[in-house]
């Protein structure tokens, strides 16, 4: 339809790459966190902000990337993977501002090789806010019908609060005191008259519901719908007084009016009030998975994976179905420092990952854990370990949080054999030390090697001078 109404030249432009490139999204904000003053402007960002474009091999040789002018061959043809990000199609100096985008492009490809679905955080149950027991349970995909709801009628936003991830209001727990004050002054205070209108509507609907119920009970005909403007100021004032003594109802009203992101109810210590006062407060439990850590900035999958489940079994052509998914190699990006209480950081598929918690190799001091302590320059390409990716999610600032476990030895061996680095099939079974059969020459060798005679003598029994 739209293409018909424009001129042929316009249609051509619209179909071109120049118009197809979306505007860049804002980069991850520079937070005031301690140590954040040490940073690099040119480091790879936690998520891409520009569209990555690619071109065919023949076109790349001619510098044709579908842009306004051909790009220089010297810098665009050397890379194996043709991936570019265009910062400006045209500038006043008549150049196209571009740079290589293999960092994010290859990271995406590597992540998709992991076959990880992105999951939403399970709300920790009950009174135990720090309960991590739900982390071990299978997680819900972010694409579940109950979580991925965006097309909601404005009047029904309050009912769908447990299923939403997108809110127009802020997440209060993520604001600093200064930001909160500013938000109150700039956004909330001018809305006072609107809020009173909103409350009047609520009062009218409540009064109407009460009248309708009474009429139904007494067999009279239904009263007409009450007009919000007929609610008097006295009624509003009484309603406000009632609200002030019911913290949850007040929060619901304000939250629905401002469309605030859901919050987990605070613990007693977090409220900072005396226990006798806290016991008067009532809180309803929040079922939204983003109430605890804040809603995400993008769609909770961030578009890096569209898988919905990891509940499948891998099949090996010879060994058959495998209990575990194939493990992957992780780079030890930074060894742990015991003195500074800094754990090791792993790199899996281009993402920085924490080492697994609990009784795992990365937490041992010696033995298999020694590799996490040292940088050994003799190891070519740096130290690497096999890990098993378990779970992936996107946090509220748009970072991909991967969780890994130690890989099982069998799965690692199978994976190594597939790479050709180990021999498992057809190899001689390793002989157990206990059941090893000794040949006569072995025994002879053993006794020959000994310096002292192994046969017992009277002297060995402590009988001297005999």
């Amino acid at each position: 339809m739209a293409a018909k109404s424009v001129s042929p030249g316009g249609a051509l432009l619209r179909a071109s790459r120049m118009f197809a490139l979306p505007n860049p999204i804002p980069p991850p904000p520079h937070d005031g966190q301690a140590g954040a003053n040490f940073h690099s402007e040119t480091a790879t960002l936690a998520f891409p902000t520009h569209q990555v474009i690619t071109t065919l091999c023949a076109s790349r040789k001619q510098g044709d990337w579908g842009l306004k002018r051909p790009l220089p061959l010297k810098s665009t043809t050397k890379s194996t993977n043709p991936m570019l990000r265009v910062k400006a199609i045209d500038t006043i100096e008549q150049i196209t501002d571009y740079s290589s985008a293999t960092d994010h492009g290859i990271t995406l490809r590597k992540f998709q090789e992991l076959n990880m679905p992105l999951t939403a955080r399970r709300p920790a149950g009950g009174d135990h806010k720090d309960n991590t027991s739900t982390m071990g349970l299978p997680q819900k995909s972010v694409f579940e019908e109950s979580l991925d709801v965006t097309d909601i009628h404005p009047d029904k936003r309050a009912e769908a609060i447990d299923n939403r991830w997108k809110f127009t209001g802020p997440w209060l727990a993520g604001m600093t005191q200064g930001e909160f004050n500013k938000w109150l002054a700039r956004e909330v205070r001018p809305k006072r008259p609107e809020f009173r209108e909103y409350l009047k509507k609520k009062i009218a609907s409540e009064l109407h519901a009460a009248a309708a119920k009474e009429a139904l009970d007494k067999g009279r005909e239904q009263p007409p719908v009450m007009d919000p403007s007929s609610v008097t100021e006295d009624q509003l004032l009484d309603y406000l007084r009632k609200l002030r003594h019911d913290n949850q109802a007040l929060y619901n009203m304000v939250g629905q009016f401002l469309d605030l992101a859901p919050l987990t109810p605070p613990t007693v210590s977090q409220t900072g009030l005396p226990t006798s006062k806290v016991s008067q407060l009532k809180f309803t439990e929040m079922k939204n998975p983003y109430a605890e850590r804040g809603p995400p900035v993008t769609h909770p999958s961030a578009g890096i994976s569209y898988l919905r489940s990891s509940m499948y079994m891998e099949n090996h052509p010879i060994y058959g179905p495998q209990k575990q998914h194939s493990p992957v190699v992780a780079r030890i990006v930074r060894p742990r420092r015991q003195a500074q209480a800094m754990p090791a950081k792993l790199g899996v598929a281009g993402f920085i990952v924490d080492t697994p918690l609990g009784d795992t190799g990365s937490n041992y001091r010696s033995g298999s854990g020694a590799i996490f302590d040292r940088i050994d320059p003799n190891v070519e390409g740096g130290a690497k370990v096999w890990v098993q990716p378990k779970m992936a999610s996107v946090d509220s600032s748009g970072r991909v949080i991967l969780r890994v476990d130690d890989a099982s030895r069998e799965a690692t061996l199978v994976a190594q054999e597939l790479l050709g680095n180990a021999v498992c099939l057809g190899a001689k079974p390793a002989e157990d030390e206990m059941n090893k059969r000794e040949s006569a020459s072995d025994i002879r060798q053993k006794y020959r090697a000994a310096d002292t005679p192994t046969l017992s003598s009277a002297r060995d029994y402590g009988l001297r001078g005999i």
Partner: protein
Amino acid sequence: MASCRQWISSATRQCRSGLAQQQPRPFSTSAPVAAFRSIFADNNDSSNAPTTSNARRSRSGPRPSSSSNSNEALYGLLTEGVERGGPLSAEEQRQVMEQQGLGARAYVKDLRATATTDNYLRQMPRRWRTGDVYAPRDMSPAEMRKWRQGRRPTKDIVDMLGFNPLDNYKNFSLISEFMTTMGRIKHSTDTGLRPVNQRKMAKAIRRAVGMGLHPSVHRHPEILRLSRHGLPTASIPTPSDPSQNRL
């Protein structure tokens, strides 16, 4: 704003809880004064029993607290407890290794590997955060060098946390943050404060120094003591009165 959420949320809660209830401050400004008093009490009169735990520990410590030199006593005050809590010295490490049954050769090998690791780590100053994306270029020396030098803060921390510096002249850990080690007030290019807040902060510093609550030539002794022990020196600024939260 979104990425600030996680770390800020705890600070917000503490700030807000501070609004409703005056929490006990982690360090009281009277503690160093009492510590000094205890030193001079030791010098002059032993009947004046010091009540602070600092003084009690320095007495039971190996260092004789009845030294005539007050500088030495101050040094003892600063170094006390290091013997117990600090990281092991090279000699102690060697003893531990010997106890564990490792020979001298294994010990030398271990030391050499640790030194190598430390040398390489010095060339990798980046503190990786979970969820960072890295490409081979991020590991290069040219890129790593950029992480070594700090830049000025781009956000006004006073505006961010919403406190009034003038109310916090007694908060020596806050005051110390905005002073150099030589006791000078930091320039706004270093603090990142906007002019209004920079003036308020400078006034708070001058007030603290003028009242004798904060030294004007070096860091606060309490800060020095805490940094020796590797303890965090930050404390939460007193939130301003909610009735004055007007912009």
